[in-house]
């Protein structure tokens, strides 16, 4: 059984990555925060008494399901909006992301690096994040779980509810797509 401290440590360790994953998927900061809060609550309420070793897998499965639920709800909402209004807003998705904003937001930070290096690194980071957002949902999901969350192939398959073969295919395609897109922008890692 996990103690409150063990659960707290786990959530503190995973929360930023979970938030980023949600942002890449839904492309909206507020919705991403809500999704992470939902996932944390579900984990604590339903599985808070499980051993801490089970948390990473359970949390990732909950997070991915919560993201999918968000898309389902958004789809239903946009259906009704379109039905009742021909002047439906373009939506919150995607339009509000600008790599320049990322640079501006952190302009004041000081580091040992030269300003040029810092800007260049932030540009690379923004490009990587933008390309990750562009990936098909399943490929992004597989890539994130496998390489960022360090789940093995079997765990990733379980979290995604698909076969291990599919995970390998998704990961491989995601990696090649990312590499090709970054190469086009002159970025080599």
């Amino acid at each position, binding site marked *: *059984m996990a103690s*409150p401290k063990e659960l707290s440590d786990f959530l503190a360790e995973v929360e930023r990555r979970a938030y980023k994953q949600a942002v890449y998927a839904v492309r909206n900061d507020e919705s991403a925060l809500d999704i992470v809060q939902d996932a*944390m609550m579900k984990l604590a*309420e339903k599985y*808070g*008494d499980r051993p801490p070793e089970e948390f990473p897998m359970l949390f990732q499965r909950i997070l991915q399901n919560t993201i999918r639920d968000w898309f389902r709800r958004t789809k239903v909402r946009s259906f009704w909006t379109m039905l009742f209004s021909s002047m439906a807003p373009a939506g919150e998705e995607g339009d509000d992301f600008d790599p320049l904003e990322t640079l501006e937001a952190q302009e004041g930070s000081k580091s040992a690096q030269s300003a040029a290096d810092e800007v260049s690194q932030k540009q690379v980071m923004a490009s990587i994040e933008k390309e990750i957002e562009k990936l098909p949902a399943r490929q992004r999901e597989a*890539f994130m779980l496998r*390489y960022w969350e360090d789940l093995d192939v079997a765990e990733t398959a379980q979290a995604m509810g698909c076969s291990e073969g599919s995970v390998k295919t998704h*990961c491989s395609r995601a*990696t090649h797509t990312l590499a090709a897109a970054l190469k086009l922008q002159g970025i080599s890692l």
Partner: protein
Amino acid sequence: MNNELHFAYQIKRHLNESARALPVNKVERLRAAREYALARQKKPSGAAQLAGAGVIHVSGGSAASMGGGTFSRSNGFEWLAQLLPVAVLAAGLIGISYWHQSNRAEENADIDTQMLIDELPPSAYADKGFVAWIKRGQE
């Protein structure tokens, strides 16, 4: 495959940096969400706690079957606990309805009795002329 892993590692490094550089307001929101979730952490059920502490001993059976037994028993208790308020509410509603009906029957019986022992015959109440005469008298 090695190239793929190396590339994925580089991406991971950048993603980690990006996660570390989250704005303070986002970090605060995440901290608040975490604390809210922790306040609602599911506690092990009483039976499971006792079993874990070794107070309940079940002879025979594997550890897995013991775990399964505890799980289903605690589930049963949870069901009972959830069902109890609903059952009490239903019993209350049935009681109120029964009491209301019996009250009404008593009231009707009283009215019938009053009408029967009255000097006025019950047929007078059905007579339109009599009702009109009473109304005129009140005016």
